[in-house]
C-alpha cells in the first residue's frame, strides 16, 4: 500500500520537471549563446517506470523523465540587416536567427502540466484516505 504514494509522487515530480522546462524556455526566448546561436527549446520526455524505486517491482510503476531533448527544429528568422548578429553570408544574409520557442505552445504545455500535477495530487490524496481507512480497522 505504501508504494501507492511513490507512484503519485513520481507523477508530480515528472510534471514539475515539465513545468521547469517550460519556464526555462519562456525565460530564454531571447537568449543567445556566446557565438550568437539562439536558445533551442528544451522538451521533457516522459516514460513509464521509476528507476529510483527501491524494489525491483517498484521500478515498473510510476513515471520518470527519460530525457530532456533539445529541439532541433530550424530557428525562426527575422529580417534585420542592421542587427549585430545578422547573418553576414549565405542565402539568409541579413536575417537574424531567433529561438525556436513558440510561446503559445509553451503556455499550453504549462497549463497541461499543472493540471496533470493536480490530478496526481488528487490520486495521492485518495491513496492517503484509503491508508487512513485501513488504519481505522485497528480501533
Amino acid at each position, binding site marked *: 500500500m505504501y508504494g501507492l504514494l511513490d507512484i*503519485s509522487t513520481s*507523477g508530480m515530480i515528472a510534471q514539475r520537471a515539465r513545468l521547469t522546462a517550460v519556464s526555462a524556455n519562456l525565460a530564454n526566448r531571447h537568449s543567445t549563446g556566446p557565438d550568437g546561436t539562439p536558445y533551442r527549446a528544451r522538451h521533457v520526455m*516522459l*516514460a513509464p517506470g521509476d528507476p529510483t524505486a527501491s524494489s525491483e517491482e517498484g521500478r515498473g510503476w510510476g513515471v520518470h523523465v527519460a530525457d530532456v531533448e533539445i529541439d532541433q527544429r530550424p530557428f525562426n528568422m527575422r529580417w534585420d540587416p542592421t542587427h549585430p548578429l545578422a547573418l553576414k553570408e549565405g542565402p539568409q544574409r541579413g536575417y537574424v536567427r531567433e529561438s525556436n520557442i513558440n510561446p503559445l505552445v509553451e503556455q499550453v504545455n504549462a497549463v*497541461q502540466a499543472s493540471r496533470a500535477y493536480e490530478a496526481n495530487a488528487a*490520486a495521492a490524496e*485518495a491513496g492517503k484516505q484509503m491508508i487512513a481507512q485501513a488504519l481505522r480497522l485497528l480501533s
Partner: protein
Amino acid sequence: MLFTDLANSGSSPALEQLLRFAGARQRLLAHNVANMDTPDFRPMDVSPSTFQSSLRRAITERRGATGGERGTLAPLDSEEIGTDSRDSMVLVPKTPSPGVLYHDRNNRDLERQMQALSENGLTYRVAADLLRRNHELLRTAISQRV
C-alpha cells in the same frame, strides 16, 4: 483453529477479498494517472465486474460447502487476479481503457480515471467499515458485555 474460525466467520472473508482488490487496484489507477502524459502509454485497468462475478462464485461455493457462516473462500478464479508468494493479491490488468487515442499514442481519459479512483476509494471505505463492524461484534462477544 479457534482463531481462524472466528476470523472467517460471516462476511469477513468476502470483505477481506474486497479490501485487497480495492487496495491493489488503487495502485493501478495511480499508475495510470501518473502516466497521463507519457507517449505510447495505454492505461490498463482490471474489471470490477469480473471481480464481482468471481467473488460471487466463491461465496456461492462457500455457502454450498459450509452453509455460509463458516469457512474460507476459495481463491478467486479470474485471469486478472492472482496471488504472489506472500499470499497477497496480485492484479494482472487486462482491461484496456476505452478513451480516444491522442497524437502521442496515449489513450488517456482523465475523467474516467478520476471516477474510477473515487469509486475505488468508496469501495475500500465500505469494505473497511463493514470489516471493522465485524471485528467490533467479535470484541463485544469476547468481552462478555452483551
